[in-house]
């Protein structure tokens, strides 16, 4: 009788030892094979494709046409980066990310860059370990309200109910705004804008709130757009842009200067159509440097000289991109803050020299 537990104990000990050995072995093996995420550019070149994290669908920023091809200003940025780094704008793997998962996916190294109409906040930068390298769209949170409720500014919304989508900073902004102005604004939280907009049209709430970039587009899709208006002011700042993981300085510089190159191109009148010609014919040293005819900007970034030229030729300069997706023929959103600083906007490209 005594042999039974003893045997079992022995067997158990044996198995324990085996398990521990296995555990140790895997840990050691893993410590050898898994270096921390290496320089992003090396990984991209080895892979032959840029992993770009984008929205699963938002008008103007990222959406698919009838053929399933991606369009939008965020998409153009992804393709411009691929053109600069890999020489081919089509070498991009687009990964649709949801609001809840976007930063975790970036942290996990599944994407190289997140261009997904995302605001960088203090918390995201510090707690999540991310950097917002460039801003490709200045937005603010605005309100779309029914004209008949007779409201002309956000502070008048005291007691109103607003439909909101969750997973963004929208709710917090409303709460902050309400606290700072003393206006009590009720919110109704939805997963997706389709439902939120439909509920608003059904009279469930008095208005809808979102980034100013989206509101104008939303209004045009309503059953009777004339019944609705976008309130003139924004209650928050939403600098939307390009996020990467902290810690890869070279990757950060490439993205930062690429954004500056696209905006500089607009400033100096370099377009998709005339870029090639300007490279050989221009007298302006700034343009020549930008397009790689002079200087060695490419080498400093670890790329070739034509990096900016290729990026500009994907979808044009920043202004051309904006026109394609938000201009009068698309969502008809005035440029406002998204104009260059020379035209009253906020985009102020740093000099490439």
């Amino acid at each position: 009788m005594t042999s039974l537990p003893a045997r079992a104990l022995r067997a158990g000990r044996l198995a324990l030892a085996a398990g521990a050995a296995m555990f140790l072995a895997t840990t050691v093996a893993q410590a050898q094979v898994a270096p921390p995420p290496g320089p992003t550019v090396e990984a991209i070149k080895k892979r032959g494709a840029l992993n770009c994290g984008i929205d699963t669908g938002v008008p103007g920023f990222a959406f698919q046409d009838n053929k399933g091809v991606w369009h939008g200003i965020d998409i153009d940025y992804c393709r411009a980066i691929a053109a600069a780094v890999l020489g081919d704008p089509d070498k991009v793997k687009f990964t649709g990310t949801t609001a809840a998962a976007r930063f975790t996916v970036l942290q996990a190294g599944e994407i190289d860059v997140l261009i997904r109409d995302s605001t960088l906040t203090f918390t995201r930068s510090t707690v999540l370990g991310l950097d917002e390298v460039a801003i490709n769209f200045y937005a603010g949170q605005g309100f779309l309200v029914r004209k008949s409720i007779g409201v002309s500014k956000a502070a008048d919304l005291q007691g109103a109910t607003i439909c909101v989508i969750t997973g963004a900073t929208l709710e917090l902004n409303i709460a902050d705004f309400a606290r700072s102005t003393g206006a009590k604004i009720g919110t109704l939280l939805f997963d997706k804008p389709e439902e939120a907009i439909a509920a608003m049209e059904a009279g469930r709430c008095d208005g809808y709130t979102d980034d100013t970039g989206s509101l104008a587009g939303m209004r045009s899709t309503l059953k009777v757009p004339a019944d609705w208006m976008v309130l003139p002011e924004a209650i928050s700042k939403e600098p939307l842009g390009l996020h990467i993981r902290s810690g890869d300085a070279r990757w950060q510089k490439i993205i930062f200067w690429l954004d500056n190159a696209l905006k500089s191109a607009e400033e100096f009148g370099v377009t998709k159509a005339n870029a090639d010609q300007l490279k050989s014919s221009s007298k302006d040293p700034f343009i020549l440097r930008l397009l790689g005819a002079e200087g060695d900007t490419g080498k400093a970034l670890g790329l070739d000289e034509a990096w900016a030229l290729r990026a500009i030729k994907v979808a044009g300069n920043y202004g051309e991109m904006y026109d394609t997706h938000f201009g009068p023929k698309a969502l008809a959103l005035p440029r406002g803050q998204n104009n260059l600083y020379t035209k009253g906007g906020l985009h102020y490209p740093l000099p490439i020299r």
Partner: protein
Amino acid sequence: MTRHPWFRALFGSKGNMIVTLLMIALFAWVVPGLVRWAFGHAVWEAANRAECIATDTGACWAFIKARFALFFYGTYPVDERWRVHLGLALLVVIGTGALFSHRRRGWWLLALMVLVPVADAILLAGGMLGLPAVPTERWGGLMLNLVISFVALAGAMPIGIALAFGRRSSWPVIRYGSIGLIEFWRGVPLLTVLFMGLVLLPLFLPNGVNVDNLVRALVVMTIFTGAYMAETIRGGLQGVPPGQAEAALALGMHGTQVQVLVVLPQALRLAIPGIINIAVDLFKDTSLVSIVGLFDLMGVVGQSVKDPAWTGLAAEGYVFAAVVFFFACLVISLGGSVLERHFSSAPKESKS
């Protein structure tokens, strides 16, 4: 006073009459408006929503028409779509064979569970045998729903069988381990575990190892379905008369042989109705992967209404998705009842 039996069944008693009149009133209230919207005033040809609205007041089916291929294949390359067709044909042919063949049914089933997954995986993913590789982020639409349901169902079978036997084991560690796994997976909403799988799986793997998004969803769906499958199969195991196992033991078969060759086949036959229910549920649940960023049919519909040309047409998209899901599930149910009849009449099991 002889009436037609139908008349009696509808208006025979006071209660019947009230029910009938209520039903007719309900139909009269709902149906005409619906028909007007879906057919009478519907628009079938338009380049964008604005044209639709300018044409008529009903549904804008032109939207569905323009996006039809996207709804079925996602962004799977046009030139490679024959592979999807071939894969589906393989599934249908072998599936039908398994359903209707009288001889060598075992081989058909084996082919369905082993050959079809392997062949289809090679066909769809490519990258070998001269087929260009198609990365999974280009898989989408209804095709993705089918892939996920089929893989999850095929993978859930062995998991379910193992857990069902585990739950009946006389070894407490195995038994409680199985119970713990089953109850955990049955106790949490699929949506939350899908999200866990998407966000947290990479954290559980060695640093630097990345798993494809689709694979993560597949792993979660498979284990989740496996837990439900285990309970259904356990019901089947309980339905096999103990005399069967005793007789087999008396014939000199040993324990494992008895369970695998005698008890399990009978249990599976008893569990068929339950398994069909799981299959239908699973197929509907695949629509939840859209929430974790995969572009299944629901995901593509949700994303299609973001194209500035078509924004605001969510109703049409959702109605279309509902119809597609309805018919797909109906096909699964019908196939299931054929299977059920085929394997002689098994007593009806409720879904568990």
